[in-house]
C-alpha cells in the first residue's frame, strides 16, 4: 500500500467492513456474556456454550439440518451435473433453449413462491411432510445453482478430451466417469458446497416443506428469537460463523496452493 491509498480509499474500506462485520462482531462478543440479558455486558463467560450442548431441541434441529443439507446437496449435485452436461454437450436439440431457460428460472424465483408451490405439490400427492419433503424442496431450488457452476466449467472444457477417451475404447459413460468427471471435479465439489450452504441456511422454503417433527436449525432460531433473543442463540450463531469461516479459509487455501503448485510445475516444464 502506497500513496494511492488515499483517505477516500481508507474510508470506503472501513465503511464497507464495518457494515459487513459489525453485527457479527457484536453477536460474537455477546455470546461470551455472563448475563442473561443480551444487551447488557456483565463479564466474560462460556456458560451459554455449555447450556447449548444440553439443549436437546437445538441439537435435534441441528441434526435435521445437517441431514437435509447433506442429502439435498448430494441429490442436487447429481441432477444439476447431469442437466449441465446435457445443456453444454448435447448440441442443439428441440426445446434446448426452453430447457436452459427453465433450469435457471428458480435462481430468480422468489423463495416464497417456490416454497408455496412445493407445499401444494406435497399436499396434492398426499406426501407426509417431514425430512424427506425438505430434502426434495431443497434439491429443487439448489439444483440450478449446481448446474450453473458445473456448466460454466464444462463450457471451457476441451471436448477433444472426451473424444480421445472414446477413441481409446471408452464407452460414453466410461469416458464421462474416467475423464470428464475427474477434470470437472473441482466445479462439482464447489457446486455441492454451494448447495450445502444454501440448504443449511434456508428458512423460507424449509418452513413450507417441513412437518411438525422436522424443524431445521434456521427455523428453530427464528422461532426462538420471536420469543426473545437468548444468549444461547448467540453462542450457536458464533459456532456456525466459526465453522463457515474455517471451511471457507480451508477451501481457498487448498485451491490457492494447488494453483500455485501447478503454475510452478508449468514454469519448470517450460524451462526444461
Amino acid at each position: 500500500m502506497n500513496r494511492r491509498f488515499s483517505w477516500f480509499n481508507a474510508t470506503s474500506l472501513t465503511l464497507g467492513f464495518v457494515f459487513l462485520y459489525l453485527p457479527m462482531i457484536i453477536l460474537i462478543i455477546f455470546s461470551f456474556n455472563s448475563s442473561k440479558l443480551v444487551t447488557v455486558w456483565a463479564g466474560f463467560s462460556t456458560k451459554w456454550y455449555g447450556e447449548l450442548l444440553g439443549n436437546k431441541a437445538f441439537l435435534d434441529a441441528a441434526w435435521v439440518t445437517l441431514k437435509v443439507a447433506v442429502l439435498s446437496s448430494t441429490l442436487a449435485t447429481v441432477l444439476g451435473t447431469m442437466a449441465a452436461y446435457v445443456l453444454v454437450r448435447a448440441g442443439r436439440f428441440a426445446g434446448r433453449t426452453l430447457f436452459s431457460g427453465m433450469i435457471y428460472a428458480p435462481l430468480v424465483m422468489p423463495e416464497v413462491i417456490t416454497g408455496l408451490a412445493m407445499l401444494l405439490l406435497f399436499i396434492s400427492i398426499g406426501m407426509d411432510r417431514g425430512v424427506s419433503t425438505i430434502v426434495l424442496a431443497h434439491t429443487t431450488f439448489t439444483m440450478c445453482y449446481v448446474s450453473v457452476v458445473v456448466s460454466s466449467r464444462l463450457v471451457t472444457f476441451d471436448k477433444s478430451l472426451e473424444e480421445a477417451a472414446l477413441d481409446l475404447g471408452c464407452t460414453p459413460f466410461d469416458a464421462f466417469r474416467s475423464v470428464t468427471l475427474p477434470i470437472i471435479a473441482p466445479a462439482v465439489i464447489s457446486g455441492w458446497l454451494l448447495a450445502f450452504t444454501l440448504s443449511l441456511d434456508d428458512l423460507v422454503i424449509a418452513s413450507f416443506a417441513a412437518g411438525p417433527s422436522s424443524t431445521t436449525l434456521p427455523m428453530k432460531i427464528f422461532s426462538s428469537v420471536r420469543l426473545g433473543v437468548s444468549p444461547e442463540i448467540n453462542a450457536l450463531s458464533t459456532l456456525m460463523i466459526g465453522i463457515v469461516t474455517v471451511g471457507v479459509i480451508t477451501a481457498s487455501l487448498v485451491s490457492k496452493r494447488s494453483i500455485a503448485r501447478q503454475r510452478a510445475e508449468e514454469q519448470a516444464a517450460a524451462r526444461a
Partner: protein
Amino acid sequence: MAQPANRPVFAPWNDPAEKPLIRFQNVTKKFGEFVAIDDLTLDIFRREFFALLGPSGCGKTTLMRMLAGFEAPTSGTILLDGVDIAPIPPNKRATNMMFQSYALFPHLTVWDNIAFGLKRSDMPKDRIPARVEEMLRLVRLEKFAKRKPHQISGGQRQRVALARSLAKAPKLLLLDEPLGALDKKLRQDTQFELMDIQEKTGTTFVIVTHDQEEAMTVASRVAVMDHGKMIQVDTPDRIYESPNSVYVADFIGDVNIVEGAARPNGDKYAIAWAEGQPEIAATSADTIAPGTKVHFAIRPEKVAIASERPEGRANVIEGTVSDIAYLGNISTYKVEVAGGRMIKAQVANERRLARRDITWDDKVWLSFTDTAGIVLQQ
C-alpha cells in the same frame, strides 16, 4: 546403409491387385445446408503415409473425423478393410487419433495416459506395463513416465500423444494437424521422427495439415482438397511437378501463371500470351484444341535469369527487374515483362551477395525449356 539396386518402389496405388485399407465410396457429408464433403471417392492403402492438404474449411478435418467415428457420412459408404464402418462406434474402431490439441488427460501421468487405451482393450493386464515401456522408448520419454502433462514441454506432450495413439497398434492412425503447435525448428525434426516411427511400426498414417511443406515432407501421397472435393491425389513430386489444375499449382509452392491461347505446333503447343511477344513453346500430354484458353504454369526455380540474351533456349522473354527478395540460400527476382505482367525467377545464391550482377531496374532475359512448365486447361 546401402540399398539394393532393385529395391521395390512403394506404390500400392499403381497395383490393381492391391486391396485398399480404406475406401471412400461416393461419400457426402452435409452440416445442415453446408456441404462439407461432396461425393468423394478415394482409396488409401496399407502402410501409406497419406496427407490431406487444403485450406481451412475444405473438409479435410471432417473426412478424418468420419474415419474416427465422430461424424457419420450423410450418404455413401466408408470401408475399412472391406467392412462398412458406419455402424461401428468410435470406441470399437481399429483406428486411433492424435488430436490437434493433443487431448492428453491432465489428471493422469504420462504412463497412465499411454496405458489408458490398453486398459480398455482385451490385452491381458500383465502385458500392459511392457507395452507402455515399449511406447515410452519409441518416443524417448522413459524419464518422464511419472510426470503429469502440464509438467512436460510442448514437444514432449506431442510425443506422449503420439505414443498414446500408437499404443493399441491401430490399423490406422489419424493425425489432426499434429505439429501445428510446435515451432518451426522442432516441427521439422518431428516430421522426420514421425516418418521414422511410421516406418518402424508399419502403421497406416493419415495426416491432416494445411502446411504444404509438411505434407510434401512426410507423405507417400498427398490429397489436395477444396470445398469438399479431391482436386488431386498424387505423390508429392507429381503434385508439385504435374499439378492437374491452377488451384493445385497455386496451392503447392510458388508458381508463375501465364494466361494465353494455345495452338498445336508440331508435337508441341504454342501459347500466345501477349501481343508482339514470341509465343511460349510448351509440351503437354493432353490434346488441346486450337484456340483453347489455357494457363501456363511454371515454377520460379525453373526460370533462368541472365543479363545477356541466352542462346539455344526454347523460350526467352525480355523484362526489367522490379523487385528482389533475398532469402539467404536463394533469391527471387520479380521481373516485369510485356503487358505489365510479373514473372518470378528463383536463383540459388551460389555466390556471395556482393558479387551479384543483376540489380533493380536492370534489363534481363528470362529463359526456360519447353518441358519446364505445364499447360493447364482448368
